[in-house]
Each structure stands twice: as C-alpha cells, then as structure tokens.
C-alpha cells in the first residue's frame, strides 16, 4: 500500500495538460453522457448484468472504452479521482482526464470518490475509503480494468461468483478474470461491513459490469436453483 502511494505521488509531477496528447471526447456530450449514465444505472441496479457502454472514437492510452465512457459521464471538478501508479504514469490519460473532466486527481486513495486501476495492480481494498456508518455514501467507487468479463462461467482463468441480493431476482453468475486472490477474499469479506463498502465497476474493452456493496458474493459451486442470467439482457 505504501509503495502504491509513493509511486502515485511520483507521478503527480505529470498533472498538467499536454495539448498534443488530447483526443476528442463524446461527440454529443449531453446525450451520450445521459446514455452512459443510464447504462451505469442499469448495471448498478441489476448487478452482474453486462453493459456495452457508449463508445468514443478513441480513448486515452491506459484506459479501455468502458472506463473512458464512465469517466466522461461521471467525473467533473466536484469529485476526486485516484489513479493507480501505472495509470498515473500515462501522460495521455492524465491530460485527457484533466482536460475533459476538469477532475481533481488526488495522491491518497482514501480521499478519492473514484479510483481507476488495473486488476493486476491491486491486491487490497485497504487504501480506499469505505465510508462511515452514518455517511456510507462517502466511500470510494472503484473502477477496475480487467482482462475478461463474462456472465457465464466459461473463463478459464477467472473467479466465478454467484451473486444474490437487491437487483437480482434469483441469482446471477459473474466471472471476472485477472483478480488477485487477496482482493477477492477482501471483496467477499467486505460484505460484512455493509452499509460501509466499496462499489465496484469492472470494465473490459466496451463492457462494464457493476458490483455494488449490497450484492452478496459466493464462490461458484455447482447449483440447481434457477438463475436469471439469460434474461439479463432483455431490458
């Protein structure tokens, strides 16, 4: 954790906009921000459903399409964002976030409203804010870029979960590749701290899936009960 923050503060020298690195954001910001938000709302209200996010022509090096779409629709000068060391070392990403979102980048993860990170960089949730019992909404929302996502447990190197809870009629399957074991354990155990917790968005290419703190996770076992994973796309 210390090394994460040290590296991150070294990268803070890059927090200026380099105009030569800028790319276009949404072509029609009002409509596309709204569409992206509705996808985020569907994702959060029905955890485990895969959303194909509104796309831009290009995204800054280091971010996938879904993360960039989320950033453009939710980030602004009123919220704080923490970048993982690898992402903070991407001048194009920093410049475009500062230019398009005017967002405030922070060095300490626990001060952040949003944290952007690659799955292979993160082995713990400890650096982030879980909110307090009286103000649980002050927690950090984590956007984690992963190598693969699926709602069927077909990924070879992924963690298969059965999800239950609000927004899920029976249960859903979710398979997220590339998560470190310790992070998975912490995600599962953090459910005991509800209403405190971390709301996660997993992104891969154009796809996004939400895992809010209210969703219960269990490591997949063969099950017989009905699931609504196939009806997940109907809305």
């Amino acid at each position: 954790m210390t090394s994460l923050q040290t590296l991150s503060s070294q990268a803070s020298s890059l927090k200026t906009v380099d105009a030569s690195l800028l790319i276009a954001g949404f072509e029609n910001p009002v409509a596309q921000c709204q569409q992206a938000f509705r996808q985020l709302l569907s994702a959060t209200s029905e955890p485990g459903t895969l959303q194909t996010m509104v796309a831009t022509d290009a995204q800054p090096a280091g971010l996938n399409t879904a993360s960039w779409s989320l950033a453009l629709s939710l980030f602004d000068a009123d919220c704080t964002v923490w970048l993982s060391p690898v992402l903070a070392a991407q001048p194009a990403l920093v410049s475009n976030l500062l230019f398009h979102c005017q967002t405030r980048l922070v060095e300490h993860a626990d001060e952040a409203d949003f944290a952007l990170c690659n799955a292979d960089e993160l082995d713990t949730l400890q650096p982030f804010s879980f909110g307090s019992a009286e103000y649980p909404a002050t927690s950090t929302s984590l956007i984690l870029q992963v190598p693969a996502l699926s709602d069927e447990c077909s990924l070879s190197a992924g963690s298969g979960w059965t999800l239950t809870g609000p927004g899920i009629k029976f249960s859903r399957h979710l398979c997220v590749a590339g998560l470190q074991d310790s992070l998975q354990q912490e995600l599962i155990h953090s459910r005991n701290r509800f209403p405190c917790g971390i709301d996660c968005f997993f992104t891969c290419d154009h796809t996004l899936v939400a895992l809010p703190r209210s969703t219960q996770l269990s490591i997949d076992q063969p099950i017989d009960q009905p699931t609504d994973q196939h009806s997940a796309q109907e809305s």
Partner: protein
Amino acid sequence: MSTPQMTQVEGYNFAYLDEQTKRMIRRAILKAVAIPGYQVPFGGREMPLPHGWGTGGMQVTASVIGTDDRLKVIDQGADDTTNAVSIRRFFAKTAGVETTEKTADATLIQTRHRVPERPLQNGQILIYQVPVPEPLRFIEARDSETRKMHALREYGAMQVKLYEDVARFGHIATSYDYPVMVNGRYMMTPSPIPKFDNPKLNGMPALQLFGAGFEKRIYAVPPYTEVQSLDFDDYPFEVQQWEESCAICGSDHSFLDEVITDDAGSRMFVCSDTDYCRERAQSNREQAQENEQ
C-alpha cells in the same frame, strides 16, 4: 394517449438542469441504488416551481431522462391534475420527449403519492416525489440523532409509535406514508402513498427512485428488492378495503377515491388510478359490444 414528440424549446439545456448538476445528481443516484433505502444528500437546485410541487422528483427525472424515454406523470394516480400536467409539459418542452398517459407505454413514471395499479415491468423506472424523506423525523427532530439511529439500526421508536396506535385505536391507524424496511437493513418512508400500495414495492421488477427537493435527499430501491411494511406478530400489516366498487369501471380491487357529487351529501367511489380505470372501462365496453353481436 401518446402525444407526438415536441420540439425542445430554445434557451435551456436538455431537461432544464445544467450538465454539472445532472452529474452530481447522477453520482448520488448510483450511491443510493448501491445502498438500498439509505438517504443520500445532494445539492438540490431551485426549480421553476415551488418546493412541495415535486422539485425533488423533477431533479431526479431531469438527470435520468433521455430522448428515447416516454414519460408519464401522475398525481394521486391521475394524469390530468394540475401538478401532473405541469410537470409533463415541463419535460415535453425542455427535453422534447414523448409523453404518455399509459402506464404500460411509459419508460419513466414520475409519481406523487401513488403507485400505478398495473404491475410495472423490469426496465421501467418509477420516480417518487417525496416531501419528508426521513421516516424517524416526527419521532426525533435532530438529523444528527436520526443518522445515528440509522447507523445503529435502532428502529424501536417506530415500533413504539405503531404500538401506541394499537393501544389507542385497537389497530395500526397509520394509513399512508407507512414505514418499511428495505432489504432488512434501512427503515424508509415510501413517501405519502396509501399503505394500500406498500405491498407493490416488495420485489417490484422496476427500479424505484425517490427525490426529496426540500430536504435534498435521494434514495432508491433496486428491482427485486425485499421491502417489508412494519407490523407486529399479533397485529399483522393490513391494507385498506372498500365495500364499494368503482362507479366507472366496476373495479373491486383498486384504490378508490371518494368524490362528493352535490351539496346533499351524494357521493361516488372511483379508481384513483385514471389510466387503470380508463383501460378497464374500455375493455368493459368492448366486452359488452362483443356480447351484443
């Protein structure tokens, strides 16, 4: 009845609110959905109508609505009351969206004090206008205290209030704004809907968002979430019942309004949900025509 898509008036941003305000409200909505029943504070804005006329619901609607949406607005179940008509026109003008009076056709439904009789579908969003979002407010006036009570899940005071009803009247006399527990964790006010509508909240396939403009709070119930009305083992939760049926459609299972028809005390009972009543009356007419033929 669907109205053709109106063109958006010039001089306003899409759906009236500026983009930064919408983003702030959108972030609050996502938190609210992630913590079902918890009231998330937000920076409420002035709207071009007074508090108490649904400014909270309107701010939520303005942040959620898109050009593809079809909006329905109801006030006490009716599409044709002043509040409903004003808000529907407001969004038709500022967002240029299509509006409808049909529950089945709507993607967004903003409501004051009723849940439509027709069961809502997954993918629809129901947005409530909320006057007082804190269920414990009339028991404990201090926000610092009610916050602690929610944090500690200390809800005994509400059970005492309901018990006092039983002791005084012999039954739970609270008939609207009846407190519920969401997902077994947070106590929530469903807004001043009649308790008749409380069972519809439980496991509803549609997403429910609640906006309180005066108190600047947003809260939510995701689809398929457990919502239980408070009660006692020996005094279980019950909803209102009527001996009368609707004078227009004959419904004996919907929420009825009592309408005084003259100075001599004559009265009639009609469905409070105008769309549901219209639909039933129409199918009754069609049935009657078929029978004649």
